[in-house]
């Protein structure tokens, strides 16, 4: 087991830069998930850690050793691929031992490791089967087993669940979490699915456009997104955004106005008159009522009923839409005008460049709505 340190890492293909100045430290035994939309560079970063793609500039350290020029096998990593990448012409046992042959592991030791991994992953009865005779979930477990027997310092997972059906995805997710608990291994895991990221990670790295947008614990990202991208990416349905402007500052309070919500007073903090802001409120934090520091109004256009909750899509006065989660059996009907409010800590404020503005929560008070 080992830690992992990435410093000023860049990746260029010809003229296009795929990764820009990536800095990231991962502790021994930590489970880190790289998440982001497709094309954000997360898979490239993983392949660079594995040594499958070259480094343009910067350094990758595994266990305090710079591995930039080392071949994949010399880095002490093992990788689990999205397509499983099982050798189709070898049975399960051979798939797991094939790599060990070349790294000087004695035959008896190979057998011992395979037996142990097979027991852990419930593969004992499948050892003599070929990949084509296995189900998707079984193949996935073989792929993980092949990584385990190598006893790597760092496990790399590249979207390992995306080829599984929904039910299997949930159970395999639990299995991977258990595995991490048992092996106490350092894991870097790439996915585009935020549920996987939230449920598995000790820390999540949100990437976009070749950059790291934010690194943090799952709930920190949810409750304190560092910028508009993270705010919009984490959470489903996505956070609602409202354009706003600071009109006046009086007595430590900034009055903010914009389309689709009632004027409200924010703690002045670092705000100046004339600042343009973006206010963000998650659908699940909007409730029907009249009392709250933040109140938005809209006409219901569509209601999606999911059961325990429903999502109401509302059109604001400026023509844009926002979404609110409505719990329970009574849902608003189409055409109805609804006012929704949110509590102070649930209103996220971002400045003109999209960076979070810290709001001293203590200085908020309820009932700060200003009727205009």
């Amino acid at each position: 087991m080992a830690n992992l340190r990435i410093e000023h890492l860049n990746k260029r293909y010809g003229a296009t830069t795929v990764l820009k100045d990536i800095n990231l430290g991962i502790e021994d035994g930590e489970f880190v998930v790289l998440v982001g939309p497709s094309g954000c560079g997360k898979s490239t970063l993983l392949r660079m850690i594995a040594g499958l793609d070259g480094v343009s500039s910067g350094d990758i350290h595994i266990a305090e050793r710079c591995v930039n020029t080392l071949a994949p096998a010399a880095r002490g990593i093992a990788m689990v691929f999205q397509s499983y990448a099982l050798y189709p012409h070898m049975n399960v046992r051979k798939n797991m031992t094939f790599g060990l042959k070349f790294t000087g592991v004695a035959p008896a030791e190979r057998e011992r490791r395979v037996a142990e991994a097979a027991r852990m992953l419930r593969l004992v009865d499948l050892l003599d089967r070929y990949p084509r005779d296995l189900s998707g979930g079984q193949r996935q477990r073989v792929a993980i087993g092949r990584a385990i027997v190598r006893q790597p310092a760092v496990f790399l997972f590249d979207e390992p669940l995306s080829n599984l059906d929904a039910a299997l995805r949930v159970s395999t997710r639990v299995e991977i979490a258990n595995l991490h608990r048992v092996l106490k291994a350092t894991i870097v895991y790439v996915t585009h699915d935020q549920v996987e990221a939230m449920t598995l990670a000790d820390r999540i790295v949100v990437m976009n456009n070749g950059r790291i947008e934010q690194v943090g614990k799952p709930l920190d990202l949810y409750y304190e997104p560092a910028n508009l991208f993270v705010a919009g990416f984490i959470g489903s349905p996505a956070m609602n955004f409202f354009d706003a402007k600071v009109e006046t500052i009086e007595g430590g309070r900034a009055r903010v106005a914009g389309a689709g919500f009632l004027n409200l007073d924010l703690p002045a903090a670092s705000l100046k008159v004339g600042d343009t802001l973006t206010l963000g409120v998650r659908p699940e934090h909007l409730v029907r009522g009249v009392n709250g520091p933040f109140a938005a109004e809209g006409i219901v256009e569509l209601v999606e009923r999911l059961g325990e909750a429903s999502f109401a899509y509302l059109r604001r006065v400026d023509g844009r839409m926002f979404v609110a989660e409505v719990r329970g059996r009574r849902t608003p009907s189409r055409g109805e005008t609804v006012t929704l409010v949110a509590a102070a800590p649930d209103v996220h404020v971002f400045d003109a460049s999209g960076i979070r503005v810290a709001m001293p929560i203590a200085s908020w008070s309820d009932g700060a709505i200003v009727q205009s």
Partner: protein
Amino acid sequence: MTAEQRAKSLGVHLVLIAYSLLAVGPILLVVMNSFKVRSAIFGSPLAPPDAATFSLVGYEKVFRSSHILTYYSNSLIVTLVSMALVLLFGAMAAWALTEYRFRGSTALALFLSIGIMVPIRLGSVAILNMMRSAGLNDTLTALILVYVAQGLPMSIFILSEFIQQIPRDLRDAARCDGVPETRIFFEVVAPLLRPAIATVAVFTIVPIWNDLWFPLILTSSDSTHTVTLGVQQFLGQYITDWNSVLAALSMAILPVVMIYVILSRQLIAGLTSGAVK
């Protein structure tokens, strides 16, 4: 099925049966008559041999007056050795060209593809000179070298397409496992190229077995003739002896047909696999 559909399907089958007859009729005719006495060959050419007309006189003659078994073994040696080398060297080159990026790789790929379109036959004058000065004239080695050079461009092209279809993850997984590059090729990639063999065979091996040109210019003695050349010369010599001619033709046809019928499923699958577009 409605009556109209049935009539249509019947029409389609009639056309296909008619063409099938046209395709195998001449071959059947030759093979059938090779087993008959001379009078029956001319008297009732379309009738299959029966007890009265059956005769192997033509085959006896072929065995007696030509080295047909030597020809067979020469053809077999030349074709099998060429095939092994074309597949081995072709797959190795295709692997390097598709997997490794290096300066000049595109130029090298272009250079190697010249031979797909430009027939090596046009270099025959120089090939003959070379083989003469190397002392390889009238040897099977000369034929094998030329056929390997002739088959490589097409086999590299076909095998590259197959190698590209092997998932990249598989090679990456092997690299993460610490498998050396040469072993990745021989133990991971090569076993997965088995379906490509049929395609390569149709486009490079069958032409080798059937070739007349190079045996004609590169071999001069009976001991190095291939079946195609040997039968061609035999036919020229015994042109009026119909029994022998038909027997010699049949002996060239039958092994190919037998192998073809056994392997036809794989061969046709290889042709239609989409690797050659």
